[in-house]
């Protein structure tokens, strides 16, 4: 037995030496631009008539609801390719991979997209932990990770350390600030009760709010948290109701949002001003609770909600409805995930069109040089603005109040950059 082990070790060693003798492999075949101002920049995944993008979403697992977003993206790109000839003559090839919302899987898929499929850029990785895992890899390998689909503030926080990553939607911090400003203006002595999800999303939004109201007459009198895995927030709602607060800030995802709305409506002894965050403000959340029970609640938005009747005659919404029916038949266009995908794909189109150099570097320069750029389905007055030090494309939100069967926008769009 011992001799066999020795022999085995010898064989292994011999093989190792033989293999090493072949030498390490050369640098992997990244292609670069040859001449002009773009010389030496990466041209992986882009030619004169095609550009390859890769997205990573949870198509399977508990968070697979987000897997609907790429269908909206795909419909938009299909429409672009078929009717507009792509962007600047380049057809968009869009590859979607599933990570099941598991960070190691996201890294694996990011590597596959970059090293195997040779994509030009990662357009949308979904989720905070998953995109964080990809962020290191993308910046190490200099792969654009553009318009991350998550409201965490980290995507734009450090353009020096992470020049290859940029977010898109307003950060939860900004959203929290908006609610704070609103109360300072409208209810300067408000006593606030907060319910928030115990993770980064909930904490970010709460932090934005608490920082904004610091030093003002608005005070937080009660706070409750819940876990995303909890069955119900009813106990938390009972505790908050006992606080005597006159404003209730509801920082929850759709499932818990409707529970909290229902609990608030059921408790006739406690009638605070109900502020619900954007994540849970879709009509599809409110409808099951009953429109009559959610009158005058307040929220903030940056996108047009396809389930909201006020946009029925809007040309952008009409285009969305028509092209979704054509390129992604059978989908319920009222689902806000599709319109979100559609809108972010539109933003990507603008970024690709704005590239000076058709290179990865050129794309990053483009997404960091957006100035008052509009894309379809953004609310009127909401535009994308970035700069070399500003990695947050959308920081404008508008307040809205639910009346009848629809949200009514009120006040001016608020740019949290200026207000901060």
């Amino acid at each position, binding site marked *: 037995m011992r001799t*066999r082990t020795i022999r*085995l070790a010898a*064989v*292994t060693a011999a*093989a*190792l030496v*033989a*293999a*090493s003798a*072949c*030498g*390490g*492999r050369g640098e*992997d075949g990244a292609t670069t631009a040859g001449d002009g101002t773009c010389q030496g920049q990466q041209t992986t995944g882009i030619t004169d008539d095609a550009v390859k993008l890769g997205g990573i979403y949870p*198509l*399977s*697992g508990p968070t697979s609801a987000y897997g609907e977003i790429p269908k909206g993206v795909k419909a938009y790109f299909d429409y672009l390719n078929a009717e507009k000839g792509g962007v600047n003559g380049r057809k968009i090839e869009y590859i*979607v*991979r*599933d990570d*099941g*919302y*598991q*960070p*190691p*899987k996201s*890294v*694996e898929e990011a*590597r*596959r997209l*970059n*090293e*195997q499929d040779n994509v030009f850029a990662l357009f949308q990785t979904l989720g*905070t*932990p*998953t995109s*964080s*895992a990809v*962020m*290191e890899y993308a910046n190490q390998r200099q792969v654009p990770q553009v318009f991350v689909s998550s409201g965490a503030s980290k995507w734009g926080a450090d353009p020096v350390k992470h020049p290859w990553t940029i977010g898109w939607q307003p950060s939860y911090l900004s959203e929290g600030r908006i609610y704070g400003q609103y109360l300072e203006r409208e209810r300067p002595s408000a006593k606030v009760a907060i319910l928030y999800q*115990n*993770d*980064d999303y909930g904490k970010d939004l709460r932090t934005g709010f608490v920082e904004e109201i610091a030093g003002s007459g608005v005070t937080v009198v009660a706070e409750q948290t819940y*876990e995303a*895995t909890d069955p119900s927030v009813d106990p938390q709602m009972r505790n908050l109701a006992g606080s005597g607060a006159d404003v209730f800030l509801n920082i929850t995802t759709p499932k818990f949002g409707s529970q909290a709305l229902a609990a608030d409506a059921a408790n006739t002894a406690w009638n605070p001003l109900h502020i619900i965050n954007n994540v849970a403000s879709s009509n599809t959340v409110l409808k099951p609770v009953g429109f009559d029970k959610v009158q005058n609640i307040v929220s903030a938005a940056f996108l047009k909600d396809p389930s909201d009747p006020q946009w029925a005659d809007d040309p952008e919404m009409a285009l969305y409805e028509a092209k979704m029916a054509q390129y992604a038949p059978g989908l319920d266009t009222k689902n806000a995930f599709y319109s979100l995908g559609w809108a972010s794909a539109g933003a990507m189109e603008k970024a690709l069109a704005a590239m000076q150099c058709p290179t990865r570097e050129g794309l990053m320069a483009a997404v960091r040089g957006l100035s008052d750029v509009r894309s379809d389905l953004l609310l009127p007055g909401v535009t994308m603005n970035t700069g070399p030090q500003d990695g947050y494309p959308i920081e404008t939100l508008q307040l809205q109040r639910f009346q009848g069967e629809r949200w009514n926008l009120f006040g001016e769009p608020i740019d949290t950059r200026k207000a901060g």
Partner: protein
Amino acid sequence: MSDVDIPRTARLAVPSATALRRLAVALVAVAACVAPFQLEPFRVFQLTMVLVYAVALLGLNLLVGHAGQISLGHGGFFAIGAYTAAVMLDRWDTPHVLTLPAAMAVTFALGFGLGVPALRLRGLYLALVTMTIAIFLVPLLKRFESVTGGSMGLTLSRPEPPSWTGLAEDQWLYFLALAVATAAGLAVWSLLRSRVGRALHAVRDNEIAAEVMGVRLARYKTLAFAWSAMLAGAAGAVNTWVIAFVSPDSFTVNLSILLLAGIVVGGLGSTFGPLLGGAFVLFVPTLAQDVNQAAPGVVFGVVIILIMYVAPRGLAGLAGRGGRFLDQALRKK
């Protein structure tokens, strides 16, 4: 186990099953050393992950396949190993190599602790108790934010290849994983060939008989749990090196279930089972996605059922059957 029924005289005439197996081991060893120089970085990364899972499955195989105890908590030990390494790297900038023994020590101790309920419970009851580890770990990791980074997780550095090797980062990681996997494989192999291995098999096959023969049940059961957890912890630490990021969502209950499925599909109690299982855990979910993007879970489930139907003793069993078939075909000539 099954090559006993071949008459000894026949072995001399044609390549015997043992010779075939030796040949297989040598081929795998050569392939393992050549692969990183021939494949592109992404494939090398995938192979590295196969090795990581294979180490965890070696542990699970020891426990489930050889000692006959069931665990649905190995994703938990994997996570604890990964987090031990991650916290050391994050807090104290510990050299990567040192995180491995630390992760192994921590998981060994915890595994030993978990071995205690295993003395009283068996079968499904034990499975449920072990599953609680996997379940409560995720919220627990989210709580202690200052240490674990909460649900944001921790982003870490990868081990740098020393310049004398001339290796790229992915190749260096691959060889680190290969070294750990080989060491773990040899350790388990020699353990099973010793007195301990026979004791474990006796415990698996008939506890009462084993006790009558003088095997101390309590000792071997708890030790089996401890070793097994330790290997899962080692795999977790290497996983941290490779992925350079940990978060609670990386280690859900699904991971534990996937690992158990991996070892059953790979081949319980077989030598190559963990390696085949590791490949299964890594490649089949992706393959399922390629087949049908809308319902990868369904495809994955169907694949498991198919494998269990075609190869009730796992992929390793299937390979063994193929080997014996070849053996007989050669003999007929």
